[in-house]
């Protein structure tokens, strides 16, 4: 069936099978491979994207369910050549190693900060508790999100 999904502010109209998972729509149909997948059971969170500004697991959503909605992926975090503070925070605080969980972590972090601009450590840990990282032990992810919270108004900090 035909769907139109707005991804990172750009509308895309495609003919898809109803069973096509949103993560495959983004990766295989649109070539947006920044969204990863790591499990089949919605436990790992590598596939998190935002639908209408709310993070969801795109491996557990059909592309047809995103018809008419706005999707934001990691590729859409950078605006007009300016990195999101969350992206800068992950660089500043070594919030990533292999980089596989990073896009999903950053999209959830963005949502958290949009709703709670000054989260404490436990709020950050809870927010990302549905997303696994096998490299960082989470410590520097938490620090990265805190960094982003503290630098939201100063986008000129060098990365």
């Amino acid at each position: 069936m035909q769907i139109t999904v707005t991804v990172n502010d750009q509308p895309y109209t495609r003919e898809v099978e109803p069973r096509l998972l949103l993560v495959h729509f983004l990766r295989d149909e649109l070539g947006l491979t920044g969204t990863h997948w790591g499990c089949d059971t919605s436990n790992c969170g590598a596939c998190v994207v935002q639908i209408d500004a709310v993070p969801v697991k795109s491996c557990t959503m059909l592309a047809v369910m995103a018809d008419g909605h706005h999707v934001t992926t990691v590729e859409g975090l950078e605006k007009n050549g300016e990195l999101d503070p969350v992206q800068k925070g992950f660089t500043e605080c070594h919030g990533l190693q292999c980089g596989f969980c990073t896009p999903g972590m950053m999209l959830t972090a963005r949502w958290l900060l949009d709703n709670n601009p000054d989260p404490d450590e436990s709020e950050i840990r809870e927010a990302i508790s549905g997303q696994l990282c096998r490299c960082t032990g989470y410590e520097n992810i938490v620090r990265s999100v805190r960094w982003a919270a503290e630098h939201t108004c100063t986008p000129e900090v060098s990365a």
Partner: protein
Amino acid sequence: MQVPARFEYEKATSVPHALALLERYGPDARVVAGGHSLIPMMKLRLAQPEALIDINDLRELAHLRVEGGELAVGALVRHAELLASPLVAEHFAILIDAERVIADPVVRNRGTVGGSLCQADPSEDLAAAFAALKADAVVTGPGGSRTVPLRGFHQGPYETVVEPGELLAELRVPVRHGAGSAYEKVERRVGDWPVAAAGALILIEDGLITEAGIGLTAVSAPGFTAPEAEDYLIGREPVDAVFAEAGRRAAAVCNPHADQRGPADYKRHLAGELTRRALRKAARRAAED
């Protein structure tokens, strides 16, 4: 990555439209809302519906309000919405407790109250929470709506009273002023299904318990509840020894199965221990009110 088998897909635009679609596709159609139980099952090919009826656009099922002394929770209310609702926090701490430990924040953004109850997983948290609250389920079908006590809603693992062609429309929970409630869960790790969990509702008047509700999940308690333990509580003082005895009685009605979450004796122990803890917390909250 695992992927579902082929199916037909329809997006419902209203409740009557959804019911018409269900009638058209028959018993091999499934309703999908958040999809966080159904889609993984379909990817693993444990479920292979011929058609999916998407009800995500049915805003008339997404209400959350108090009316006529009852909280009405539309089936399409997302877990995250229930958790964030000041109305729910004011009257039903148990639902906040339970929602906080259901899956994870990202899944809660998508998963729905109705979806969780209709999936009828024998370890579902909300089944125990709504059972403790003695909620009613409103089921809509071609012939109109019917109301079913939540305690009779589940007919067994993955089975409910919702017939093919019907939809769960909403949950209705009586608001009891001065009541306290709580939910206690043991999980192997955050986000996991419960090893066991217990919910409690308690109303205290003149120092004695006048109403009690107990919900239990993952321990094969019939109807997700323990009526004998509830009866025991009525007319007694809200003290630890009473709660502990209620816990023992609650554990006695459970018939837990061993699995990788734990052996049966442990789960039965938890049913008692968590009932005691939930009652104690609920009583404390009632006193604070």
